[in-house]
């Protein structure tokens, strides 16, 4: 198929950026979206133009490194990561606009690459259970009710890609934060630090310039891993309890 790509090009954080139009041909519907960009980049290098910079690593939907706003949707039209989006989701002649994640907390690095280190700092603020190596008790001394273990797991499947932030009109990181609060809060091991964790992580979230949550639900709709919106309710409940 033939496509027209409009891609955000920006040489660096302080440079001016613009959408640049690139026609591409011979795109197979079996290509992944990122393979389509690989094809474009090979052509650009052949013509002596610098390739488009974009992030990707595992290309199997689990590492969370890939991103991209595709026609205004985080990770594009399907509920999956960009690396798992395939060209059969598009049609011959389509115009596709490709932009980076846009959020105050994710400053642009180059072209389609942004800096998501704010997520690391939110985790550093308390997204863990404090147990030194060697200090653990025998694993089966800790029993976890199956439904709680399952909910913890579902929340823990967050890949930290940032689609929730990119999709949110407020660029809020609450779904990411709520997922971690729910993961650790559902487990008996996570109780000792439950109150302090939510307060510290939320403070860091705000300090990173993520926006507030208005329960619009765009985040959960865009999440490639289907993290449910109720993790934000959990976050709010835990926060209210901690502040009491």
């Amino acid at each position, binding site marked *: 198929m033939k496509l027209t790509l409009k891609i955000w090009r920006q*040489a*660096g954080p302080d440079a001016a950026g613009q959408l640049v139009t690139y026609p591409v041909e011979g795109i*197979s519907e*079996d*290509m*992944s979206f990122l*393979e389509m960009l*690989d094809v474009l980049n*090979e052509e650009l*290098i052949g013509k002596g133009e*610098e*390739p488009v*910079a974009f*992030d*990707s*690593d*595992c*290309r*199997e939907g*689990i*590492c*969370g*490194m890939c991103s991209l706003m595709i026609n205004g949707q985080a990770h594009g039209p*399907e509920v999956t990561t960009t690396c798992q989006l*395939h060209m059969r989701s598009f049609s011959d002649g389509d115009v596709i606009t490709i932009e980076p994640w846009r959020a105050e907390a994710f400053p642009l*690095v*180059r072209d389609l*690459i942004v800096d*998501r*280190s704010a997520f*690391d700092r939110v*985790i*550093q*603020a308390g*997204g*863990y*259970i*404090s*147990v030194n*190596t060697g*200090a*653990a*008790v025998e*694993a*089966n001394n*800790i*029993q*976890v009710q*199956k439904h709680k*273990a399952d909910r*913890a*797991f579902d929340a*823990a*499947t967050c890949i*930290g890609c940032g689609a929730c932030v990119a999709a949110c009109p407020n660029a809020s990181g609450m779904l990411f934060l709520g997922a971690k609060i729910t*993961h*650790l809060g559902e*487990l008996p*091991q*996570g109780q000792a630090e439950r109150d302090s964790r939510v307060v510290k992580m939320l403070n860091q979230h705000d300090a990173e310039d993520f926006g507030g949550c208005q329960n619009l639900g765009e985040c959960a709709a865009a999440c490639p891993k289907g993290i449910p919106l109720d993790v934000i309710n959990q976050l709010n409940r835990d926060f209210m309890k901690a502040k009491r």
Partner: protein
Amino acid sequence: MPELIDNLYSLGEPIQDTKAPGGPIDQKWTTAKFENKLVNPANRRKLSIIIVGTGLAGASAAATLGEAGYHVKSFCYQDSPRRAHSIAAQGGINAAKNYNDDGDSTYRLFYDTVKGGDYRSREDNVYRLAEVSTNIIDQCVAQGVPFARDYGGLLDNRSFGGVQVARTFYAAGQTGQQLLIGAYQAMERQVAAGTVTQFTRHEMLEVIIVGGVARGIVARDMVTGEIETHTADAVVLASGGYGNVFYLSTNAMGCNVTASWRAHRKGALFGNPCYTQIHPTCIPVAGDYQSKLTLMSESLRNDGRIWVPKKREDCEKDPRDIPEEDRDYYLERIYPAFGNLVPRDIASRQAKNMCDEGRGVGPQVGDFRRGVYLDFADALSRMSRHEIDAKYGNLFDMYERITGEDPRVVPMRIYPAVHYTMGGLWVDYDLQTTIPGLYAVGESNFSDHGANRLGASSLMQCLADGYFVLPNTIRNYLAGGPFEPVADDAPEVQEAVASVTSRIDALLTVNGERTVDSFHKELGHIMWEYCGMERTDAGLRKAIDLIRSLREEFWRNVRVLGSAETLNQSLEKAGRVADFLELGELMCIDALHRTESCGGHFRAESQTEDGEALRDDEKFAYVAAWEFTGGDRGPLEPPVLHKEDLVYKFIELKQRSYK
């Protein structure tokens, strides 16, 4: 000048001492932990350690050494430590907990791992791995890793290939992700505590050696392009495997050999480079544009039947129109006892044989169709759609997303793909390379899996190394410190920086005609054809010639645009491919010299009457540890082979049979 063998390599001194303590095998690790010197908590604050890589081995080591009080600097090329490719591991992690009382034990896990490795691993290391396996589960549970549980709230287990007990702990099909997030969180806790400093989007490009010992690294800030020097009292490489030498593999796009290869070039021996694992059930290549291969869990072989058409002319037909009598269920035909459940290497090799005969299916890429059917029609007639989906629904959906075909309707197509590299930097019992002060953990070392790795063992090894082994061995070295500080203008540092910058300059100034990816693809094609599932004397010799001329062309004709002072992904790739072009030659030399077949290394000249891998224990029961001798951006000097004899005191060597 030592005598050249085959005009390719020479023989050096054998390796006599692996530094393992004496005594009964089940006492060795206890002895080592006691005899290794201690560093008191006050002194730990004066000592620094660099760790390259943040996968399971690197992140767990950083967390543990940070908790102990050392200063740790952690490096990764991704934008966050949580992205490291351990995250993609699906199946599970083995541990000899014996929660099911089905006869498991440390000794049985040790035995299974040595046997699974086709008797080419070191007994002492593997026993220790089995011994600490149970501690890993305890640690991960305490951290909040949400392993699967039963309705009683206790941990659930499943069984995995090549063993008869259920010892695999898992978190749905995302065990690697959950373990890595656990290790990452433990590491981030230490970042907050100030013991670990993390450097993301940094790539190690050289190791700094002062007075014969490792004292730091040269790294490139991939955002600003700045070349930085980082010095420390010890350096740990946790930089993963080198499967991407094949271009297409199940590895992440960025996985590379550069950290290990730079260390190898500076004197660290490289162990068993030719041992690679090819996984039989991956989604086949769809076209020349393909950038990576995706694994489909091996569990599919429990209910799917593998076949190809009997007649070549049927290969283009809709498989549903091919009648039963025209189908060749070749694994069931050749191996009636094990059928579709033969081990990974056999299933892989037979798929290749079928396609080489021209009976492959799916799109033609190059000269052949590279795919075989994995058919669930029988299973669907036996089980309800609901039952099938409960078992395989997520895998079917993943397959459909990638190929556009529903395996419930059309047979799935699969083909083998490079998955894991058992070879890596040679290490002693302490996980120290042949450069003092330089350690290698996880997939980057060669130590525990011999010639073939069993399922659910890579996660176990990475976390064993990082949480429990390295922290207890590196202290024996660090007790001799703190060492004399290394000045930024020391000649050794300056020389390392100069070698990095001149190499970057060289890559940017060739300004040739071909892209980096085109070289990488061609190298991958050579490796896959001649150093892949089946290797022959003639093929390997041909591959060595092809790689040499490709490397020559690379440095004459590669095109890398942009500058060194910005984020430049072509430049990053170019450096990695340059190193793969050197590694590929060594892999072929290693594969050529090892004229036996063992595990993942199948030499066509060495097989049983039934076509199984035939070991030669008389000649080859050793680790091949290769020494780099020189050459840069062109011909390499012949490497020197050092042999470490493998002595089996506890386990008897046997020939595998799956008929």
